[in-house]
């Protein structure tokens, strides 16, 4: 390999990390989704929502201004915390949520750092690691409210993880692949996943609401009893990162949902290996679908109060688990009869 291709290769990888699935995209997505959430809630609640930062575009830069504020705030690390865990945990939480994005393709010719036929598995593994750091955050803070928040996170994590995995497994059974791109191509040739297995789609939606802490499952951060839940002791950029992580997770989940259930880049089916037709056009379609899913989920904030912990855990072990098992059975039946 000559020196020039090596440099190009490195530049391409850097672009991946920084721009496309990477940090810049994440920042834009988080800024937009927070703005969208606040605007949707404001519309239902008879008010304006964020307005005064960049009034001409409806206050869209408000979240950016908040980020700047977090960046310049004083970092306070309480004395009794476990310092390394306290500092590292929010960053790792954010990092794993972001790295998972690398394995989620948005186009038929999307190549990642590690090309693989097991992208579904990789992304799921990384997504599932994230809540462990949430528990670390609660443990490291040495605060009773954070501690209770972490316990709640643990309870919910255990009770909603199995339904989540089962709902994905049922789609894997139908598509007979561990690769998102193959799964999408399967759907393009037949039917979108939400029609093939609506039970799995419903399970996935509920799990998405729960894992990303949207209402009515905003239990770990229930501010009327737990102040700020896990992030009670945090300040400045650490808090900002912690606050942004659920939105990154939300983006991950929405991408997975649109790939597995909404037909990915359907109706775009042109199969050409070209940056525009292979990546940008399908990418736009997938991201738009993901944003619609996110908008639906953040809209729930305007309708629901939150459930209690025991109610959420109970429904997780009963209804949602049942639903996911049924979805697996449905998949098996479909595969037996359709193929």
């Amino acid at each position, binding site marked *: 390999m000559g020196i020039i291709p090596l440099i190009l290769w490195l530049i391409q990888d850097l672009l991946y990390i920084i721009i496309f699935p990477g940090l810049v995209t994440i920042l834009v997505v988080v800024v937009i989704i927070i703005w969208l959430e606040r605007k949707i809630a404001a519309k239902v609640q008879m008010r304006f929502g964020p*307005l005064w930062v960049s009034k001409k575009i409806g206050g869209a830069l408000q979240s950016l201004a908040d980020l700047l504020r977090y960046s310049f705030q004083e970092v306070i690390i309480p004395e009794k915390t476990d310092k390394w865990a306290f500092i590292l945990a929010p960053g790792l939480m954010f990092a794993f949520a972001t790295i998972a994005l690398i394995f989620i393709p948005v186009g038929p010719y999307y190549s990642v750092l590690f090309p693989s036929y097991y992208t579904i598995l990789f992304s799921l593994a990384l997504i599932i690691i994230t809540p462990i750091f949430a528990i670390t955050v609660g443990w490291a803070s040495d605060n009773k409210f954070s501690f209770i928040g972490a316990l709640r996170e643990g309870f919910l994590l255990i009770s909603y993880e199995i339904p989540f995995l089962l709902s994905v497994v049922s789609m894997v059974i139908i598509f007979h692949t561990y690769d998102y791109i193959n799964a999408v191509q399967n759907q393009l040739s037949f039917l979108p996943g939400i029609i093939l297995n609506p039970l799995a789609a419903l399970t996935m939606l509920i799990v998405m609401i729960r894992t990303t802490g949207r209402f009515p499952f905003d239990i770990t951060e229930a501010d009327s009893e737990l102040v700020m839940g896990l992030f009670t002791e945090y300040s400045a950029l650490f808090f900002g990162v912690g606050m942004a992580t659920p939105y990154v997770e939300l983006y991950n989940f929405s991408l997975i949902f649109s790939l597995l259930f909404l037909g990915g880049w359907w109706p775009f089916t042109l199969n050409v290996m070209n940056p525009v037709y292979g990546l940008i056009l399908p990418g736009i379609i997938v991201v738009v679908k993901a944003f619609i899913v996110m908008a639906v989920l953040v809209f729930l904030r305007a309708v*629901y109060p939150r459930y209690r912990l025991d109610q959420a855990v109970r429904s997780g072990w009963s209804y949602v688990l049942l639903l996911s098992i049924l979805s697996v059975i449905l998949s098996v039946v479909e595969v037996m009869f359709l193929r």
Partner: protein
Amino acid sequence: MSEVRKPRDPLTGHVKALAKGFKYLVEPNRMTLDYPAETMKLPPNYRGFFTVDDKKCIGCSMCEMVCPPEAITMVPRIIGEGGKTIPAPEGEKEVKGPKRTKRPVVNWGKCIFCYFCVDVCPVDAFIPTQVHDLAFEKDSEYRPSYEDYLKPPEEPYKNSKKVISKADLKRGVSYEPAP
């Protein structure tokens, strides 16, 4: 009267709640005022900052006596640097003595706008205004001198759109441009 409690079945409940939320999402019912780009023109009996009519006031101290937070103090009727008592209003004879030399001054840091002083005044000498949103930069501005107190309060946000509130069947309160 007692109502038997019927919990709504969950499916209908969720659907109705979501539908109602969605209805307000596509058909917003905005009630807030874009303050300070729009400001209210308040009704004439609104209790805002007030000042005193120097010609009418007889210096009887009733307002000082009734003031619940003790915000009103009677001061000598003095205006200007030299500390001279200002001349009597036009067409009246200068009267020496306490009767015409005391005047009320309100400490805005204490005033609660109950208007007991305005109502107790036997000659109706207070001039109420509808200005209510003033901010003071300095602590001393809360306690104006008599000369400063006589100036009517300046309305902030002069360039803002003046609106009046109106009861509305659809939105509860609607804001219309003031006449």
